């Protein structure tokens, strides 16, 4: 009984010191992490539609039937009072990870800009979906009839990753007027 109490006490001591150290690090790094994330997001939004003066987040997101795609966030870009486009953050299930895409749609309902925010696909194969040579195929598209190997050339050896991007783009185009 005494033994257990002693052990418990020692463990408690070690753990509380560790917790203290971690709390301190967390406090100090969390601010930087938050700022980094916010900066990065703002930079991306600004890059997508440079002439926008203000972005407004959409509260009720449209429902997606496709289980492999999820819409994270929609920001509507305004220039003064006028709507000049929307920016979508969508997640699509890739080969080995969730691919997060940012897609900008302009006034005419066409894709103006698309980039991969984060992915953990196979380096050298699936990760090639971040390259411009693949992504530029989507620019200017406005109807959700895209299909890998038909009207979109997939990254060679990475059909699944490529299809994941195609799937996400189709969902965005389907719901662009929600």
């Amino acid at each position, binding site marked *: 009984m005494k033994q257990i109490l002693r052990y418990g006490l020692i463990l408690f001591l070690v753990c509380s010191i560790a917790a203290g150290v971690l709390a301190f690090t967390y406090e100090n790094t969390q601010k930087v992490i938050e700022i980094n994330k916010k900066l990065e997001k703002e930079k991306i939004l600004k890059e997508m539609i440079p002439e926008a003066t203000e972005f407004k987040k959409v509260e009720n997101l449209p429902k997606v039937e496709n289980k492999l795609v999820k819409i994270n966030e929609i920001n509507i870009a305004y220039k003064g009072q006028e709507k000049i486009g929307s920016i979508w953050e969508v997640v699509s299930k890739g080969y080995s990870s969730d691919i997060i895409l940012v897609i900008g749609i302009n006034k005419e309902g066409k894709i103006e800009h698309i980039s991969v925010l984060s992915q953990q696909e196979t380096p050298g194969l699936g990760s090639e979906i971040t390259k411009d040579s693949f992504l530029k195929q989507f620019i200017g598209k406005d109807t959700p009839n895209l299909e890998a*190997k038909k009207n979109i050339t997939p990254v*060679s*050896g990475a*059909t*699944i990753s490529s299809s994941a991007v195609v799937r996400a783009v189709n969902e965005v185009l389907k719901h662009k007027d929600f």
Partner: protein
Amino acid sequence: MKSEMDKLIVSSSPHIFVKEDVSYAMRQVIYALIPATLAGVYFFGLYSLWVILVSIISAVLWEAFALFLRKKPLNILLDFSAVVTGLLLALTLPPKVPLWIPVIGSGVAILLGKQVFGGLGDNFLNPALVGRAFLLSSYPQIMTSWIEPIHKIGGMVSQASPLTSTATPLAIVKLKLTGYQLPSYWHLFIGDIPGCIGETSALLLLLGGVYLIYKEIVDWRIPLSYILTVFIISLLFGKDPIFQILAGGLFLGAFFMATDWVTTPLTKKGKVIFGIGAGFFTMVIRLFGIYPEGVSYGILVMNALTPLIDRTIKPRKFGEVRK
């Protein structure tokens, strides 16, 4: 030969073969492959002959290099196994590949597929298929660009010849490609279809396979159970079974690769299980995988499972009582 083979007792490893026997068997395999090889050259042009020659020569050179590194006598080369590996590898390549592809492929086949394990008899995977698997995952684009048969020995002398690219029948079905027409059974049977150099002509491969079975180089159980399994599974899943058998590399794989002495089970029952398993995995890949064709991976998976099959199915010792 026949009566001698009857006395031959098949046992578990170590496999120590009399050299003359291995060499004899390997030469028979080469003879059996000649019709299909010639058909490939006829269908896909003279360039495919270069691919085949480069593959065979580089396989022999790689083998010599490996034997030199391992300080083994070079006369092991006379067992012809490197020639067979090179030839089999070339027959599984698309006709239009650049010539460095067979060099790398046979290097991987001989060095990583065979010699690192200690040479012929100690490899657990079919070397030619290791080479092909390596090439397929390393150069997916090159390894999946096909051409229409051209029926002219003089056609396509070099890789640069302008030829329309196309898709294999299996790819057309699997990816639901439009704008292509599926070949008739007859064309599938004689091999007048796009595909790897040596895999298209079911007729000539069957001829070679029957020759090998007649010479008792290969056991009929593996090809038969393999092809039957593919037939039955395609029936069950509502696919056209005759198409599934004739398209792709099933005949080449079933007769010449799934029957490799070293990498297949020793017992009769084990051989049947091997064939069924290879057929099963082939169809799983064809039906549900990302690749349209699954023969090579099906055989490789069963190669890896062979020691397990051999351990489970032991021949009953003389006098042993069944439990």
